[in-house]
């Protein structure tokens, strides 16, 4: 099941009312339809990460509201939102507990959907984990008792992707999740992302610095600058956009500000 994400009039300032005041988000409005896959562009400091943090609940906005489906989640604590929101970061280390095994990591991520049992691991869930791990095609299904810290970056990020989506979230946030991987691993993780998002029809936002990815994946591309959405491409307009033109727009914005 996927839900609509709606941000209305979000403002977030850092060090408000001082000389160092920085407006990270400036009356930002964004509506993402259920099941839509949106790629997010923007230079450093444009407010992308702040927007994600506001959606995730690790930051609270000064003004404005966040809706997921028809629920107002503006004031909801981060771990409570996590029930419906999956998230994946650039650093593969962030999404996993290195000293727990692959199986145990998945079991924790699966907490909200797990079969009731005295021990955290049970046969039914483990069989399911084995099945989903095998879809990665990395042979991880035979290494379920391996500590996840021993995997390579690409394997670990693929496992994190499973962890973020295994409990069928309504919304998935991807923060440059392939940027730290080598090109081969990045391609593989992107292909997996596409597959999982399309199969489960999860509403998805993906931050990327790769112009090709921004146009290739999903059905909508937005660009942030100075805490506002300055470009919103869908449909025909998006099809006609080239990476060259996009890069021009991107650096134009960055240059003007810098």
């Amino acid at each position, binding site marked *: 099941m996927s839900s609509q994400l709606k941000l209305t009039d979000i403002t977030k300032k850092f060090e408000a009312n001082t000389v160092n005041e920085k407006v990270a988000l400036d009356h930002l409005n964004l509506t993402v339809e259920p099941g839509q896959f949106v790629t997010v562009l923007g230079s450093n400091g444009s407010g992308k990460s702040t927007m994600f943090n506001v959606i995730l609940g690790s930051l609270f906005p000064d003004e404005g509201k966040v809706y997921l489906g028809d629920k107002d989640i503006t004031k909801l604590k*981060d*771990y*409570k939102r*996590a*029930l419906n929101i*999956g*998230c994946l970061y650039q650093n593969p*280390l*962030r*999404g*996993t*507990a*290195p*000293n*727990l095994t692959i199986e*145990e*990591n998945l*079991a*924790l*991520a699966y*907490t*909200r959907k*797990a079969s009731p049992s*005295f*021990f*955290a*691991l049970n046969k039914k869930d483990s069989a399911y984990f084995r099945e989903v791990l095998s879809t990665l095609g990395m042979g991880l299904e035979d290494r379920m008792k391996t500590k996840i810290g021993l995997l390579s970056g690409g394997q670990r990020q693929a496992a994190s992707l499973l*962890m*973020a989506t295994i*409990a069928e979230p309504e919304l998935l946030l991807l923060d440059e999740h392939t940027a730290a991987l080598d090109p081969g691993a990045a391609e593989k993780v992107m292909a997996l992302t596409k597959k999982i998002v399309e199969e489960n029809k999860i509403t998805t936002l993906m931050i990327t610095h790769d112009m090709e990815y921004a146009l290739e994946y999903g059905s909508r591309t937005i660009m942030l600058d100075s805490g506002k959405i300055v470009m919103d491409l869908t449909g025909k307009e998006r099809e006609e956009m080239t990476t060259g033109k996009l890069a021009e727009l991107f650096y134009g914005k960055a240059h003007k500000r810098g």
Partner: protein
Amino acid sequence: MNEIAGMLVSALGQGFIYAPMALGVFLTFSILKTPDLTVEGSFVFGMTACVVVTIAGHPILGLVAGTLAGAAAGLCTGLLQTKLKIEPILSGILTMTGLYTVNYAILGGQSNRYLQYEAKNSLGVTVNKPADTVYKIFQRDFGKDMSSGMTAFLLTMIIVIVTCAVLVTFFRTRNGMAIIATGDNEEMVRSSSINADVSRIGGVMISNALVAFSGALLCQYQKYADLNCGNGMLVMGLASVIIGLTFFSNHSVTIQAVGVVLGSLLYRIIIQIAYKIDMPSYAVKLLSAVIVVIALVIPWLQKTYKKKGGRR
């Protein structure tokens, strides 16, 4: 030969008594990765709570009371850490310092209290009898043919094995695993929609309950409670944990927990040997500190040595 056997039993007996404390230190230091200084206070809190209830005539309830007292101390530290956002080390120091007053008050304004205390009034009538302890009960019911040292050793060993088994089982439940993951990567725990604050508080509570349980056992074993018993407890616990983990660092938490119990035994044997070669009793703390420093430095030395070897 008999002397050595006696020494060994005594060392192992003490090692078992301090094993729950070492497990408690293991839980905060190694699993939650936030050193907790509450230990020094909660160990004594376990003793004082136990001594009062034991004198009232309930030795088993005394152990329970001691354990609960430790959990309460842990709750206090946990809340300071998570809800009031005070640095973990400072949180522990604050609780420990506050507990000194609490412990002093529980002992009725004295610095120690004896279970053996026997008093006669002016007419020569006994008004206060020595209190029963779990060790005495065990001796009476099961250990008639054994020396009191041996029964104490056996009983403590059984208690510690059960405690360790319960702890290891707990680590395999969802809540237990959440505590391990919280020490490993708190962010991952939160994004799995688990309240990491609760895991952290729970972990610190269980840790201090174990520490206080150790204190309660010691109190009934040595038949008195003393405010100074907690001094240096954290370093002693750390020494046991580090000795134990030297052999089992890359294993599962289950095996590590068993390693910590073995570490506690080994530590007491080392101390006993030191006594045997005429080390004065006041040197224990310095020895413990040195053991911890050496144990902490060895892995680092090994690494640098290996690196140099590789370059050649």
